[in-house]
């Protein structure tokens, strides 16, 4: 290769990089902290996920969101995700309630790892669907694990929480929304 071109290579790479930065900063409405809100108040996507073998709860598909007339909390989790463990006690609390559904989507995980993780920490989910290739996760607009969705009894997504439920989030955000939706019914 021509030596001169070699010396301009760092500059060219940097220019491309800055093009990306500029795009990201000027794109209207882009805020990485807020979810792309396209999914809010839209019906949940179609999916049909297989169960985690030997866990003892069934798999999870789109129809489960609308069959029993309850509000559903859908939690995206994985055994390799440390914050998931941090929010796990909150999931345990939610899972004990029988007036709502708590469904888990096991995201990009190995079945054995997921099973061990749930056996060790307790399985709060009423249904768990495996999403090893993150196909369903992409449909749900997942870009970080964990994420928590609240879906009403008609299968419409009403709320999305990105990242772990920090202390206080359950009481201050999730539960009030569930109460609100239940009151609306």
């Amino acid at each position: 290769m021509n030596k001169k071109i070699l010396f301009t290579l760092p500059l060219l790479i940097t220019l491309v990089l800055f093009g990306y930065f500029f795009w990201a900063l000027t794109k209207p409405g882009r805020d990485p902290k807020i979810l792309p809100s396209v999914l809010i108040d839209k019906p949940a996507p179609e999916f049909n996920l297989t169960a985690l073998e030997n866990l003892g709860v069934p798999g999870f598909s789109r129809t489960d969101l609308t069959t029993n007339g309850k509000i559903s909390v859908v939690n995206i989790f994985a055994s390799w995700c440390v914050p998931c463990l941090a929010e796990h006690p909150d999931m345990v609390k939610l899972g004990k309630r029988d007036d709502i559904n708590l469904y888990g989507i096991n995201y990009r995980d190995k079945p054995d790892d997921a099973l061990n993780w749930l056996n060790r920490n307790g399985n709060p989910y009423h249904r768990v669907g495996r999403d090893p290739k993150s196909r369903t996760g992409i449909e749900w607009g997942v870009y970080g694990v964990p994420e928590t969705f609240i879906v009403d009894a008609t299968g419409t997504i009403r709320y999305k929480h990105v990242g772990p439920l920090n202390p206080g989030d359950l009481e201050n955000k999730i539960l009030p929304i569930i109460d609100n939706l239940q009151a609306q019914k």
Partner: protein
Amino acid sequence: MIAELGQFAIIMALLAAIAQSILPLIGAERLDSRLMAFGSQASLIQLLFVFLAFGCLTQAYIVSDFTLVNVAENSHSTKPLLYKISGVWGNHEGSMLLWILILAVFGAAVAAFGRNLPVTLKARVLAVQAMIGVGFLTFLIFTSNPFARLLLPPENGRDLNPLLQDPGLAFHPPMLYVGYVGFSVAFSFAIAALIEGKVDAAWARWVRPWTLTAWTFLTGGIALGSWWAYYELGWGGWWFWDPVENVSFMPWLMGTALLHSAIVVEKRNSLKVWTILLAILTFSLSLIGTFIVRSGLLTSVHSFAVNPERGIFILFLLAIAIGGSLTLFAFRAPSLKAGGIFSPISREGGLLLNNLLLSTACATVFLGTLYPLFMEALGGGRVSIGPPFYNNTFVPVMVPLLLLVCVGPLLPWKRADLIGVLGRLKYAGLATILAILLAWYVTEGGPLLAILGLGIAAWMLLGTLSEWADKIKLFRAPLSTSWQRMIKLPGSTWGMTLAHSGLAIAVAGMISTSAWKVEDVAVLKPGETISVAGTDYRFDGVRELVGPNYQAVEGTFTVSQNGEFMAVLKPEKRLYNVQKMPTTEAAIYSTFVGDYYAVIGDQVEDGGWTVRIYREPMVTWIWFGCTLMVLAGLLSLADRRLRVGAPAGKRKQEKREQKSQRNAAA
């Protein structure tokens, strides 16, 4: 009144910096000694004013002057004094001012300590340093004024984010910034050298202590940050591959490469263009780090408030700084004369390989950090990159690097005999095999990869120690001779041995705690016991506490093994009064072989408490190793050969150089 003084001071500092970035440059071109000397004076004036501004802001925080927006948003009158002071840099504006202060300190330090730098080089270095200052002072004054007033001051402030109210985090940002900003000196030297068109051994000797200073502080800053994450976030982890962590790690990797390649320029006058490029890239990565944390480009747990306007401003600043320097590089670097040649297997070759591996490792981290952004821009939707990515890309690149850490220093310059060198490491090799077998036995055949990883760490440590023993002829000469040789070892040699050993120890800690960490979550009622990895944790109950600006629930655990008492752990769950934000304060009992770590969560309906228990084997080794690396950096800095100002050392060095030139000629 004092805030207005601070406002005035940053404007004066900007004016000084503008003059400093132009006049010495003209002086160096025209060989006008008065204009060149102005650079030193201006850098001191600039420092004085930035220091004054910083003092004004600190005063506002200490007396809780809530007429300032910045203080009202980030402080509170009941906050302990330490956190009032650390609150100065716990927010975007204040941390930017700290950044600029450190930049000014480094500029003034070059002016003060660089008395025997060639005058033109010194003038140009100071001018480039001032240009960076101009950029960031403009940014501060026009988009992030820390001295903005409030028309209707509130009665009290909104308090600092409780997670940041911690002694570890009080010192983490200043150390990190000294690291980031310290690389600006290497950058300024690189740009000045490109303008001058000359890079030689003397240049490398001037650059090294500055790079070493920056590297030492950056190492300390990163270690402190990871330690904070470990005990404050309550997840028992010490590194999360979070974008904000990554952006501090990338300059570290590049800076480490720069530290090593500068040795080749200094000793062998080779790899010059590469070293210049590394100096530019290291500081560019520091700048990008500063930018990413503040622009809201990527999501992260601990970034500052997002403001797109600021993002665009700082992006243009970066485009000018990085784009400009790389353009200069593209034009001027091809004309730099190549230095001495060497065979692939030699000290130079080893250091070059070290550089290539470190740069590749840095590239993988870079790709992992920015890949989500690239995907999104290309319409691929939002994706997240987690630890599996880094385990599959970063770790494989690091393995050969770590294996070769103790081989490199044994290679002679120019041409080496690899078989002979490996022969000198045979005892280290044998001892490593024993260490692997021991690890195998202790862990009862635990994960093979982790045991081999421990083997790598053992090899690094033993190889480094055997090289040290070789140097002082331990056991091959009378002990008194060895002792004599040992105390005569120069500081930089000690530094190398200590830094490599520290790295080995840190790696051992990282591998052990990743592979053999045990964690458990349970709901316990007072009096109940949970057993984790053979250790019993008895939950004795909770009591309520009232702190200066928070209320807390404190749990008590009695830790015992086989009925034998070990420690009492008192984790807290705090609720800060102002921000209504709860934090967990983990309780940790540290031992040489591992940590016993307890976190208390919420109370559940039936009166039990959620508790999380972690057993973290050898986790403290990570920070012990990092401490050794920091000490190594300081020891090296104390080496008089690096202090260009020390006349005796310099004379010796010149003699040595003449000798080596004669040898080279012969």
